[in-house]
């Protein structure tokens, strides 16, 4: 948590499925924790895809394939749809991912990732398809995510793309700051708004 963000180069874990919902990222029965132990959520990331009903690892699932590792998750379009559970972002962070690359993110989940210092990087469909192909051809394909420059580069092909993030959030990620600090510091403005809107 709150690991400052700069430039990351890593191999990737590919999950070429679309519409991965947060119920798959962390099933509801793991939401009963009252603390934020990321290791607990990380251990249960993609629980029902990762393990068979008898608790043994599902060898067909990418997290159990020793060929793939790294702190970048590459996922199909519309990642994180459905439930607002921030536990999904805790599970992703707890597993050790620091970046998720997809061509489209669901709104609430995207914010949840940002609030947990996991960087959602939205790329074009083309870029994503090429990246999946690169990883398929060579599991050791590396990607560089440069937050200061807002670029993502597939090192196998050299293809690079700009990604969007607002200046405020970029500053927060690079400096380990969060929104609550900002909002508490701005309480005078909130009180002023309240007086004007009674």
């Amino acid at each position, binding site marked *: 948590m709150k690991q400052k963000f700069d430039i990351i180069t890593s191999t990737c874990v590919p999950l070429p499925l679309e519409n991965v919902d947060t119920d798959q990222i962390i099933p509801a029965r793991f939401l009963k924790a009252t603390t934020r132990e990321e290791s607990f959520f990380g251990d249960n990331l993609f629980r029902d895809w990762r393990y068979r*009903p008898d608790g043994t690892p599902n060898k067909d699932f990418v997290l159990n394939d020793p060929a793939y590792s790294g702190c970048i998750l590459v996922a199909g379009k519309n990642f994180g749809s459905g439930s607002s559970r921030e536990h999904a972002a805790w599970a992703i962070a707890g597993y050790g991912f620091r970046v998720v690359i997809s061509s489209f993110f669901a709104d609430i989940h995207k914010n949840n990732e940002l609030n947990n210092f996991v960087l959602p990087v939205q790329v074009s469909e083309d870029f994503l398809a090429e990246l999946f192909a690169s990883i398929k051809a060579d599991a050791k394909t590396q990607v560089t995510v440069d937050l200061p420059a807002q670029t993502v580069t597939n090192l196998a092909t050299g293809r690079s793309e700009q990604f969007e993030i607002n200046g405020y959030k970029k500053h927060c990620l690079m400096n380990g700051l*969060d929104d609550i600090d900002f909002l508490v510091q701005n309480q005078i403005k909130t009180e002023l708004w309240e007086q004007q809107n009674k």
Partner: protein
Amino acid sequence: MNTLFDKIWDRHVVQQVEDGPTQLYIDRLYCHEVTSPQAFDGMRVRGLKCFRPEKIFCMPDHNTPTHDQDKPIADPVSKAQVDALARNAAEFGLTHYGMMSKDNGIIHVVGPEKGLSLPGMTIVCGDSHTSTHGAMGAVAFGIGTSEVEMVMASQCILQQKPKSMRININGQLGKGVTAKDVALYLMAQLTTSGATGYFVEYAGDVITALSMEGRLTLCNLSIEMGARGGFIAPDETTFAYLKGREYVPKGEAWDKAVAYWKTLKSGDDAVFDRELTFDAADIEPRITYGTNPGMGIGITERIPEQGGTSNPGFQRALDYMGFKPGQKLLGTKVDYVFLGACTNGRIEDFRAFASIVEGRRKADSVVAWLVPGSWAVDLQIREEGLDKILQAAGFEIRQPGCSACLAMNDDKIPAGKLAVSTSNRNFEGRQGPGARTILASPLTAAAAAVTGVITDPRELV
């Protein structure tokens, strides 16, 4: 420009952060037991008090059992989470409607029925179905736990302003077609990400004619097409629903409030980033066949043929559901029926269900769970005598809560079993590991419950 969404949003802007999000004032925060404990922890770590505790309302709903609520919760982990909410609410000075309190129920059912969600408000909760409250003419949306903590600490949230969309549905709904079917139709048209990045205003003849319960169902499902929220401009239906409710202004304050609420509509010159129009005549009772709510068909239609290698998600979903491309689902054997959830756990939903089962019998092969959305709904069911009709037909009414919608309590659909559910999500494992879910309206659920198979409710209405 000049949409109702703009009017409500712009009025709540405390400041625009330079090259960043908007600091938005929040009128109402709801907390349930699942997505709040880590926010309360964060407040304690920072040594903060809630900035405006009187604007925050808490109630457990996800873990609550739907039987024997007067006894301690058997599952110790669920009990710990429910107890933590009570303790946290007391420590931070927040209103808490505990289990067995007559005020308890699903947060998205209780908020509107107590008049806590009002036109023109900004409303948030750590729950994606917070969009429900948009039916009152409010800007309501789901947030994460870090954002819950933001609101506790400052009564504000930092958000990028979403784009605006208007969806018009004109004409008149046919017999046996409900707000749920409208929503399932829209999801299939737009897909589960078609409205991502947008706030949706619903308008048109069909929307104007909908009851408050129907509007709540429709707005509830906005998130299932990706929209952060959906809302309906307040009108006489809204005012009639609200008048006299516990937290609604009374007397002179009521008149003043209504006068303001009447101004809450999009201007004739309003410009939406996207506008779509549909015809009610195209909507029949709907069911889903796959593992996201956008994978739906008219009840008489066949599952699409698309699939193969070009769409691995489609085949994967059908494999999970045990269905084949091109298959018709009418006549398919059903194991479970669930009536309830923040989507369809209101009085009108129970009236609809009862209207079909009256004078018929529950099929012996079906296990049916009927779960009111709140104790207030439960009371009204009994006052209207619906309980007698349901019992005579072989159904029992359980105690309020989220129940089998997400199976955080004991109400889990067993692996492999097929459920017709009035809830909101048919994701893999949503209603229990391996459970197979078909989303439908209360009428369609009732038709399945009495026949034991997927049945067009129009044959029984």
